[in-house]
């Protein structure tokens, strides 16, 4: 049925009257023109035109074939050149007749008989199939390291030769930078260069892998993926304590914690059997999300933002997949549906955003000692009083039933300050979001007719509060400046309501700290007023400078508490009354953009008509035990808890009680860490329309995407833990590949898969797919040991090649993807600074601990650069010269030295840094304070240790930074510079003191001039391209 003689224009008009046969007329067009890119082997745009099922299904940009509607069929539009998308086939057009034929076929219903084409689907994407170990090729038959086999096979295929080995100096510096992030010392280089023993290189590798700095170097890389920062982000960007997590990561790398464990602990360490502090700290990985506590935020909205961030981080850091798209809709390219996304989301959606107290090893030891001494003292008391059980029972009998009946009020708070209040099922109120530092909140409740003699304010714990509360301070404490209460008839109209104040005559509380001054450093007052804290009497003294401190001191401060306020005269409500409380909290600092709040966190109000009501001195648990009465069912711990309360009431034990109090006073402050804490009640997870938390559609159960490996479900394993284990299952296709690829990226500048954050269908093709898989399997079969992979990589010949760029290589492989040479690249921001510190001898090598504040321009941390004033305690002494890993990281005003060199801010997970080369970087290394201090220190060191002659000293300074000796030209250049500066110093054109010491000195030191000249020289050496380059 050929109509070849019809003119093209007419063909379109003429065709519809003839039936087009797919098999004989359309399929041949596809075969001839399309299969090459859309066929069995290559399936660009996820289209294969030899497959009926694929062609008739929707593609990434819509329906390819819509029966009877060619204009709506993207296939027709593309071949006919309609619309914006490039015309198909690429690089050539179909003839008008062929186009007309396709059009007619679609108009007639796009009838594709099942007998035509294949029913096969799209090829499985390589990365979604588990890696399989390929046999390493061995070109020449003797590549000792399988890595070289893979790399050389590819080189041979491209007709390229590997490069010769780099010099020992270069290797020493390369290895040291790659494995520890620090340059080698002159002695270390010398030792290696002079080491004639067998496997000197292997021993160097072993030494560096065992160095505690290895964990700092590779831990930092993981911290990028974990979006680590020391502040909350968003507007307030308050400081947070999370360095225990940072140290946990460093320690894990140093201990070569198996990577599967490493991941499991970070996702669900708290759920592991016998989880201790370390395992809980590990969950800080998920908590590194930003927190928005600006005025007027909805806590749930930003919890969801944090959840999205966690999903993104798990995707990038662990799975090497971009899951973020599926937050709003099915993934466009990968078979990840929106439902899949929320099913995975459900695994991690059942936890509280908690903050817990953490202690260093030393503090833990002290804490243990204190607690056991207290137990010993109590044991001693029991031993010296044989009838203590009877006496305690008698006390309990007296104590039982002494608490009046309290009626809990249904209170609520009107919005206004920007703080948000959630009324919980027990009628307590939880304050969240913005935390004002000075506020008065006014809970209101309805009071039924009857008599009121006292009000009770209970302060309760909640996992969402810092350290569990009950207050909102960074320690979970609070201070109540004043308490007062008013009533008005509920029937009166709001505008005309006349409030009557009820006088409070007496206040009692279960925690009554001694008088103290409010710490003006932690809670500064703008006018410098000195404010006081103490017992609950301060809450009713009508004096705004004093407050009841809800703070039981270190080790005992995060506990529920209560106060009772007795009215001077009983109040009798004749009709329903409104009761309005004034909870005045004015003891915070002045800066609500810092952690300076002392507000109540979770509280509940009650009334009683009982006479003489007092705050129950017993903790809730002990009260319940006492009311229950002693029985055989009481556990040892319960007995001990009651005993600890009772002993306080025994007069003859005053001395022991005093000793116990002294012990508590020695309890360490500790620090805090953001962690996950599983809720008692799981949350319901729903698919969210366009990712909007206000538009949940369908509820989903936790589950894993169908295109990945299955989940072994065990009823007794908590879902989040099951998910964590699933992530690192041996069958997980991308997990091992993703991490070995990032190790490769660290050592070669680019991963085998360049898109290290994405192994999905849109990923760049791996340059060495078999090698990637081989490494992935090697990792898993060697107990997920990352150090094993590092050792394999750095001992390969491929790694040990010179990085010299020849014109041939520059032409053949400008980006060195094939690795016919080693890679040469600028080191990461932290290393730029660390190199200056280490090679000048300034570096402080202490590992771990609180972050430090390197010198930085003060204005950065003040408005109008920073939203609010931020604290920056510039480090002095050795602290100043700690590694950049420890520099405090504010997300909104990051430490500029690092960000100038592309260090991420921690706002989102990053598995591949940018590597820019800018003038601002030159300004940093030339002029920034610590870099200048490093130049001075290197000068000092050179004069002290570099020998006697200029030549020896130039060599010393050069080698301190670059490991190698200078060449003749380099030596002459530096010599000339030195001489020129000496000349200018001698004439007084240059001020020696300023250059050498940074400030004028009263007594000109004899060698100031020499020191100054060498400072100028050192500064040049530290600013060389090579100094901040890993060659």
């Amino acid at each position, binding site marked *: 049925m050929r109509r070849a003689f019809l003119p093209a224009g007419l063909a379109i008009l003429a065709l519809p009257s003839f039936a087009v046969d797919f098999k004989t007329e359309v399929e041949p067009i596809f075969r001839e023109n399309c299969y090459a890119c859309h066929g069995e082997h290559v399936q660009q745009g996820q289209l294969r035109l030899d497959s009926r099922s694929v062609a008739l299904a929707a593609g990434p940009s819509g329906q390819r074939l819509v029966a009877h509607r060619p204009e709506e069929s993207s296939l027709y539009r593309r071949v006919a050149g309609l619309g914006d998308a490039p015309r198909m086939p690429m690089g050539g057009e179909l003839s008008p007749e062929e186009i007309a034929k396709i059009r007619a076929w679609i108009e007639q219903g796009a009838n594709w008989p099942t007998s035509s084409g294949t029913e096969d689907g799209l090829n499985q994407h390589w990365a979604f199939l588990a890696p399989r170990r390929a046999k390493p090729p061995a070109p020449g038959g003797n590549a000792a390291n399988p890595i070289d086999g893979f790399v050389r096979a590819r080189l041979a295929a491209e007709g390229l030769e590997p490069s010769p080995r780099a010099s020992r100096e270069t290797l020493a510096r390369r290895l040291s930078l790659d494995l520890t992030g620090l340059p080698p010392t002159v002695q270390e280089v010398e030792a290696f260069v002079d080491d004639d023993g067998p496997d000197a290189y292997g021993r160097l590798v072993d030494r560096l892998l065992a160095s505690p700095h290895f964990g700092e170097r590779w831990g930092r890389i993981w911290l990028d993926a974990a979006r680590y920062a020391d502040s909350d982000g968003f507007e307030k960007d308050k400081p947070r304590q999370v360095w225990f997590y940072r140290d946990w990561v460093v320690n894990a790398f140093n201990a070569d914690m198996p990577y599967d464990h490493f991941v499991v602990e970070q996702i669900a360490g708290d759920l592991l059997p016998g989880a201790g502090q370390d395992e809980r700290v590990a969950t800080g990985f998920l908590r590194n999300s930003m927190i928005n506590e600006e005025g007027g935020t909805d806590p749930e909205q930003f919890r969801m933002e944090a959840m999205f961030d966690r999903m993104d981080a798990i995707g990038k850091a662990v799975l090497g997949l971009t899951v973020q798209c599926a937050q709003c809709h099915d993934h466009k390219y990968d078979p990840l549906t929106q439902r899949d996304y929320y099913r995975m989301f459900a695994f991690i959606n059942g936890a509280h955003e908690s903050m817990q107290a953490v202690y260093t090893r030393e503090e833990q030891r002290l804490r243990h000692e204190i607690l056991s001494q207290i137990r010993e003292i109590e044991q001693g008391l029991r031993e010296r009083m044989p009838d203590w059980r009877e006496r305690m029972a008698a006390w309990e009998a007296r104590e039982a039933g002494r608490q009046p009946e309290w009626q809990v009020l249904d209170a609520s708070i009107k919005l206004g300050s920007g703080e948000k209040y959630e009324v919980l099922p027990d009628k307590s109120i939880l304050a969240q979001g913005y935390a004002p530092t000075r506020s008065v909140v006014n809970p209101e409740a309805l009071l039924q007719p009857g008599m009121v003699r006292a009000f009770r304010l209970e302060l309760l714990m909640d996992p969402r509060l810092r350290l569990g509360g009950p207050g909102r301070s960074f320690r979970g404490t609070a201070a109540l400046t004043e308490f007062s209460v008013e009533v008005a008839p509920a029937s009166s109209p709001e505008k005309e309501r006349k409030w009557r104040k009820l006088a409070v005559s007496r206040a009692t509380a279960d925690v009554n700290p001694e008088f103290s001054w409010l710490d003006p450093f932690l809670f500064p007052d703008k006018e410098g007023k000195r404010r006081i804290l103490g017992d609950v009497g301060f809450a009713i003294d009508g004096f705004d400078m004093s407050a009841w401190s809800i703070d039981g001191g270190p080790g005992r401060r995060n506990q529920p508490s209560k106060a009772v306020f007795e009215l001077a005269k009983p109040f009798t409500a004749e009709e329903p009354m409104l009761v309005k409380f004034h909870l005045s909290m004015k003891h915070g600092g002045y800066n609500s953009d810092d952690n300076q709040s002392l507000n109540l966190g979770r509280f509940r109000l009650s009334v009683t008509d009982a006479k003489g009501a007092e705050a129950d001195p017993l903790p809730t648990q002990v009260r319940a035990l006492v009311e229950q009465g002693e029985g055989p069912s009481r556990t040892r711990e319960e007995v001990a808890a009651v005993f600890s309360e009772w002993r306080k009431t025994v007069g003859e034990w005053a001395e022991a009680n005093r000793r116990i109090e002294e012990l508590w006073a020695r309890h360490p402050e500790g620090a805090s860490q953001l962690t996950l804490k599983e809720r008692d009640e799981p949350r319901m997870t729903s698919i969210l329309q366009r990712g909007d938390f206000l538009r949940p559609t369908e509820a989903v159960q936790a589950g894993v995407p169908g295109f990945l490996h299955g989940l072994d479900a065990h009823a007794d394993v908590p879902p989040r833990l099951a998910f964590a284990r699933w992530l690192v299952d041996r069958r997980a296709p991308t997990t091992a590949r993703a991490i070995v690829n990032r190790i490769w990226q660290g050592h070669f500048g680019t991963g085998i898969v360049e898109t290290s954050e994405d192994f999905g269908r849109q990923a760049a093709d791996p340059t060495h797919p078999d090698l990637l898989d081989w490494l992935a399997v090697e990792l898993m079969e060697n107990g997920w040991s990352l150090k094993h992979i590092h050792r394999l990589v750095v001992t390969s010949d491929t790694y040990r090649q010179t990085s010299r760029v020849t014109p041939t290589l520059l032409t053949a492989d400008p980006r060195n993807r094939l690795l016919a040479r080693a890679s040469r690249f600028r080191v990461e921001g932290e290393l730029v600074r660390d190199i200056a510190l280490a090679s000048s001898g300034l570096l402080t090598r202490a590992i771990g601990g609180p972050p430090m504040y390197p010198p930085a321009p003060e204005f950065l941390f003040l408005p*109008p650069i920073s939203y609010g004033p931020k604290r920056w305690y510039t480090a002095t002494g050795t602290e100043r010269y700690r590694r950049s890993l420890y520099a405090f990281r504010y997300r909104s005003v990051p430490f500029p030295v690092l960000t100038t060199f592309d260090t991420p801010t921690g706002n989102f997970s990053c598995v591949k840094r940018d590597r820019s080369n800018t003038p601002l970087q*030159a300004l940093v290394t030339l*002029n920034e304070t610590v870099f200048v201090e490093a130049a001075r220190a290197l000068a000092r060191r050179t004069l002290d240790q570099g020998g006697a002659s200029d030549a020896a000293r130039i060599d010393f300074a050069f080698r301190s930074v670059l490991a190698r000796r200078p060449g003749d030209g380099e030596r002459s250049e530096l010599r000339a510079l030195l001489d020129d500066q000496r000349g200018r110093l001698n004439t007084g054109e240059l001020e020696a003191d300023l250059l050498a010491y940074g400030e004028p000195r009263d007594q000109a030191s004899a060698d100031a001039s020499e020191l100054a000249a060498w400072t100028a020289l050192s500064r040049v050496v530290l600013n060389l391209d090579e100094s901040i380059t890993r060659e």
Partner: protein
Amino acid sequence: MYEVRERANGFARRWFLQQCGVGLGAVALRQLLQASDPMAPKQPHHEPTAKNVIFLFMGGGPSHLELFDHKPALAKHEGTLPPADLLEGYRAAFIDPNSTLLGPKFKFSRHGESGADLSELVPHTASIVDEIAIVKSLVTDAFNHAPAQVMMSTGTQQFGRPSMGSWTLYGLGSESRDLPGFVVFSSGQKGPSGGNANWGSGFLPSMYQGVQFRTSGDPVLYLSNPPGVDRELQRASLDSIGRLNRMRLLDVGDPEIETRINSFEMAYRMQASTPELMDLSQEPAHVLEMYGAKPGKPSFANNCILARRLVERGVRFVELFHESWDQHGDLIGGLTQNCKDTDQPSAALVKDLKQRGLLEDTLVLWGGEFGRTPMVQGGTDDGRDHHPNAFTMWMAGGGIKPGATLGRTDELGFNVVEDPVHVHDLHATLLHALGFDHTKLTYRFQGRDFRLTDVAGWVVQELLA
């Protein structure tokens, strides 16, 4: 010694040209080096009407109801509750949305040939009203500051996307060899709520991020030489560094070293040119007066003059943050002060640019991250809460239709009822003026082609001259 240095220079140059040049071909080499200069000026998709942008970002959320969007009916309904249907699904940041309405606090009158109705707070803006286009129908998605600012700056509430200025540099490159292509200033009572994410480069290469300048002390971080290093020593040091780097280039052949050498030279030029640029005492008295600027005293007015000076020097995108517009309380006092600080300089900037013929290809944008509620906040009838449903911005120059007014809100200024312009549409229009089809200015990241306008945005044709 001079000889040795010269020889080293010569070696490197010759080696590079001969070895690399021969191997690669001169053109290929140039391409390779140019490819490593992502700041090279580039052609956009179509003929642009704007080459530069100055964004006067009024952080905090200026009240459209007191400045640009005259609502006499709001005065009439003052003290009553808003209609219930208006509040359906409406969320407010601080207040219970069911709060009483608050009438406009300032008088409005008509100005210019366009007859635009402006508040008495902005008399200077009134004097340029025929130069600007006022858009009364902006709509955004967020009602908290940080997310809304990041939305305005990057097109999404989530952190981590490139800012407008970064997209602009990525698309157009920079005309300036001595200065960053995207410069940020900050004035006002606070810093920007969205912090550096407002001018971050997101997943774009980091060299496209904004660089903060300030008007006291070092204008750029680490611009000054350290103590004891005079200009001559700095030059001598850079010469040595350059020569040593060239020797290394000779040895290892990595073109990246050439880029490093250029970076150091540009740093040196920045050291020389920036203080001169920042020195407002060079401006004639009548110019200072027009802006209300005082040299040496940091202010929004000073920043406005600097914005002009930067644009004159080929800086592509200048952004001035003035974070002071969050009038939950002290609406009258706060707005009065803010307008005192910003009205005159903003208008002067437009006039000045026009006088110098720069307004033709410089697009000036004035506005904040959202508007403010027609409902009152606080008991003293002197505050408004955040409001994302409707707010006003103005634009001038760079192919924007002068004297135009677009969009209308309902009688309470609550919702847009005519010609809504979503933040995405604003971005699309801005990119259009710069010569881009906003759907085609993309960057592939994580397997997806990202845009400033995400998956939305329409060019607002009515705003184009």
